[in-house]
């Protein structure tokens, strides 16, 4: 009988204790979960930042190389055009056109006036 009453009281105490502690435990668990989530999130952010940074570097690398290639192509084109201009300005060619197509002749000595 005595044992039974003690058991009943203990049970009541346990229930009472449980009812009092449960919210606190839940609160602690929620806090732990939140803490874990924040920590995990932070780690994830760092990892994602690291990956993003790498992706950006590679993307910019491609972009830099693309622009460098474009610049080299434009420089090459400029040089080709300069070469073409130099070819077209060849005095032999100019004289052939002047004499052959335009019918020009060299000025005589008296026809040249030097300006000073």
């Amino acid at each position: 009988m005595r044992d039974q009453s003690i058991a009943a009281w203990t049970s009541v105490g346990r229930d009472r204790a449980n009812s009092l502690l449960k919210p606190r435990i839940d609160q602690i668990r929620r806090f732990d979960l939140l803490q874990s989530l924040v920590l995990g999130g932070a780690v994830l952010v760092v990892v994602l930042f690291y990956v993003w940074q790498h992706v950006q570097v590679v993307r910019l690398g491609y972009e830099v190389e693309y622009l460098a290639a474009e610049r080299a192509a434009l420089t090459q084109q400029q040089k080709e055009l300069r070469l073409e201009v130099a070819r077209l300005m060849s005095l032999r060619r100019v004289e052939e056109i002047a004499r052959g197509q335009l019918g020009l002749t060299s000025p005589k000595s008296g026809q040249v006036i030097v300006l000073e």
Partner: protein
Amino acid sequence: MQRRARGKSSDTGATRSAPVKRGLLRRRVTMLFCSLAAALAIISGQLFSLQVFRYSELARVADGQTSRRVPTVSRRGTIYDRNGRELAISLATSSIFARPSQVENPERASAALSAALSLPAEKILERLRAGKSFVYIKRSASAEEAEAVERLMLKGIGSDEQGKRFYPKAQQAAHLLGFVGTDDRGLEGLELQYDAYLAGKRQWIMRQQDAKRRPIFKEEADEAQGSDLHLTIDEVIQYITERELEAAVRQSGALSGSAIVMDPFSGEILALANYPTFDPNIYAEASAFARRNRAVVDYYEPGSAFKAIVGAGALEERLVRPEDRFNGEGGAIEVGGVTIRDHERFETLTFAEVMAHSSNVGAIKVGQRLGKSHYYDYISGFGFGNLTKIDLPGETPGLIRRPKEWSALSLASLSIGQEISVSPLQMLTAMSAIANGGNLVRPYVTKSIVAADGQVVLENAPMQVRRVISEDTARTLATILKGVVTEGTGKAAAVEGFDVAGKTGTSQKVDRATGRYSRHKVVASFVGFVPVEQPRLAIIVVIDEPSTLRWGGSIAAPTFREIARESLKHLRKTPVDREPFRLAEGIRNAAFRLN
């Protein structure tokens, strides 16, 4: 009851099975844990093995896949004339090459390359099977072709970007510029002389690339562009000289010809031409004779043009005066058992007339007055027998013997320009000394060398080698040489509106078959300067073996005239008989702004 009994028995079963289940669960958890731990251990072990034990080997493999050593494109510097006009330019072109031993399927590779490069597949296959360790499939390929080959990703096939030399003016100044070989190294002319400056410094850099061989990052490399050459050559005068020389050689049916135009005070070469000539863009198609810079590397007997040197020595030593008279001996003189004749019979001539009419007898008598030793000193003094040290490769010092090796005839022969061989450049340098008041100057063709960053790395300035004759002697001789053009053998060299001084020369060539002077083969030349009072141009024209118009005065002198006249017009020199046209101040300013 039955229900209770069942329920009781059920309760008993539950109490019995719970520990069993817990045990089973624990075993399963333990097994799972062990499995995971074992898997983790295996992975960690493998990771450790890859990261630690096989690190260097795998790092090398990875590097080989993602990194590649590529050469930087080295471009040769540009060559400009004195007014900044391009005479030689380099452009980047690609070469497609193969290492046949690494090509896995030559048939498939040649078919793919054929489509990409527009070349016959059989030709490519033939090259791949030539048994060589390295072959070029196509040189001077376009950037698009090189890219197409890269995209094919064929093992053993690659492309290499290189500089290719272009000479936009084709034959113009070909002998001066020279040319470069397929490896972009200078082989002749200025390309060879200044190869170390012109050639870019090729570097190998690391390039990171993706699976499609597209570059991601490239290592920074220094500028691989070579330095630029700025020449003393004037493109217009060069063109005039080449045009007139070609006309003279064609007109006279000559073997070849050379002409040089020089500033007699500074030694700057304004033009240097040889005919026949060649196109340095396709130099391999030209003969060695056409490619030879005969104005600098070949020598000839100057003949009567050399009388200016014996005259200079005799005047400087005060052994003759312009008005001194010489007996023409009726046009012939015997020296050392040999009779030397004049081209016409002269009775008495002054020293000035000896020069003007190019009398051999008179010149020999002047030489005899000067004597062996003095004459040799003047010959050496004017630079004959030595290099002028022009900045061009292969220069000849000419041929001259020392007085102790001279025969009884030598002094007489040398007085009329025989028994000595000189280069056209040496003869012009000597005439320039007479033109500029007696100073022998070093000729040069490169004004400056400018690096890609704009820094001047080399600058040539006028250099006086030595004073050969006094200013008075030079002035007197210039007046005498003016007489050659006004009343002597060089009348055809006269330029309207300008005073010209110079000397003709027609020398017989030695016949190699007989070892004696040939009756038919001659070298006709004229060397002089203009205007006499303030010389601006010194010019030499040498025509080798003309078959018609065989005299210096009939073929070289008119060529001199044409070169001088057109060049003076280009240099905006006002003829002496004409006042310069002065523009009103406002108009002049406007005109300069327009320029």
